[in-house]
């Protein structure tokens, strides 16, 4: 079966405000198989979010090729869901209107879109909150709205950019479990970017470690823990700890490199 996502020798450069060139990613090669849940970890500023932007089509690569579902990416691809780190639910729309937005943009009638939205709203546990505005919801509830908004379109590829990093630890665990539950019911391939190695291993089938910027794939590790998983309890399994230690050795070097660089650029 063809891979869901293929990045081949991708390089991404940005122009800095002072006119210089900043290379976010250099020669990055990565493959996500169909139905696979992949986590991407790396130090701050290594280009993890840029990778998601390239897969989604929001940004084109400067060099190299990005293929999604067998076709090269050209502009925003169909069948992609994206969950942002900061709140991207629309503050002036109610919960119902937010979740119904995707189907409406894609041509559903308002009535069909709303019916579908109600279904998804109850699936993420927000039944009864349809007519609230985002400012009236807690952080975790807003994330659930974002999740429903994203999944209602039935995406084949799910891109998630540290979606739960702004939540407190307990809510984060709950959301991670909910995510796994909702994902298991679909057959989507997921790319989940995070700083948190524990989160990465708990959720995924494979973990990619990105080097300090300009980012490239340093290594990838298969996570052969059984599913279904309970995120809160899986971290106590001995095999989990083995995997964690192995990946951490790799990740630690990159984190230190990145940290040193920041210290020097601060002093310079």
């Amino acid at each position: 079966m063809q891979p869901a996502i293929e990045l081949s020798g991708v390089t991404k450069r940005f122009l800095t405000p002072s006119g210089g060139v900043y290379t976010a990613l250099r020669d990055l090669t990565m493959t996500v198989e169909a139905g696979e849940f992949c986590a991407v970890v790396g130090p701050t500023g290594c280009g993890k979010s840029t990778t998601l932007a390239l897969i989604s089509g929001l940004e084109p690569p400067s060099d190299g090729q990005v293929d999604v579902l067998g076709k090269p990416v050209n502009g925003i691809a169909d069948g992609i869901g994206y969950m942002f780190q900061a709140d991207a639910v629309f503050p002036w729309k109610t919960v119902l209107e937010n979740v119904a937005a995707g189907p409406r943009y894609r041509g559903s009638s308002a009535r069909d879109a709303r019916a579908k939205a109600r279904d998804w709203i109850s699936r993420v546990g927000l039944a009864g909150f349809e007519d609230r505005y985002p400012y009236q919801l807690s952080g975790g509830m807003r994330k659930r709205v974002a999740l429903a908004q994203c999944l209602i379109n039935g995406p084949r590829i799910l891109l998630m950019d540290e979606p739960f990093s702004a939540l407190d630890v307990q809510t984060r665990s709950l959301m991670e479990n909910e995510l796994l539950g909702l994902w298991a019911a679909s057959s989507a391939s997921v790319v989940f970017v995070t700083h948190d190695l524990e989160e990465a291993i708990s959720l995924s089938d494979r973990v990619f470690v990105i080097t300090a910027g300009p980012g490239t794939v340093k290594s990838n590790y298969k996570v052969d823990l059984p599913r279904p998983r309970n995120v809160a309890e899986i971290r106590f399994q001995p095999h989990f700890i083995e995997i964690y230690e192995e990946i951490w050795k790799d990740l630690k070097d990159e984190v230190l490199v990145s940290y040193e660089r920041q210290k020097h650029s601060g002093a310079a």
Partner: protein
Amino acid sequence: MVSLRRAEARRRLLMIQGLRLLVAVVILGGWELGVRAGVIDKFFWSQPSAIGAKLWLWVTEGTDLGTIWEQILVTMEETAGGFVVGSILGVIFGVVLGRSRLLADVMGPYIKAANAIPRVVVGALFAISLGLDIKAKIATAAILVFFVVFFNAFQGVREVDRNLIANARILGARDRQLTTEIIIPSALSWIIASLHTSFGLALVGAVVGELFGATEGLGELIYAAKNNFDAAGVFAGMALLAAIALVAEALITALEDRLIRWRPPVATETRI
């Protein structure tokens, strides 16, 4: 517990109303006494009793230009007309230029130049080109409103959160949907915030437009009073303008509350 708080709040409100009344009494009373004692010159400053009498005269017997209601109506028409025209044009131009980098860069210097001209003076131009009828006054009011609303809409459009636009595009929004569903609602808070000042400006524009030549309206009434050295008349006209502005202010605030229901209420906001 709740009833105690409510009683407290009511007491506070009564105290504030009482103090407000006290301020009015002190100022008006001081003014009136000052004139009667000869300390304030009645010729230049008039006195509250004379102003009150003038207002009463206008209401009961009408002004030299017609009934007072006709004057108010005319000025209101000019103000409302200028406000609507200026706001609509301001929003359209603001959104179009906000969306199109190219247009914004090309038209930028021209708009800045036009903005730099003391806009009130443009009223003279309109008086010549559009004559002495209501169109010239509406145009003067509209141009004052236009620039304020335009800059606010422009800025509002440019400052839309990038994440929201990215999210909408990934969910499948086309360009037109982006503009109507994301950009305009997002810019709306900027635009509505500018409506308060722009209504005030529309009123100014209407009155100034009348000063450049008119046969009716509150501005013309004040102008005629000035020509007759009727200080009471000038103050009376000003009082009426102030009353109109306050009523409009309340209406716009109500509109704002209705349209921006999705904003979290600001904790420090006080309702006056």
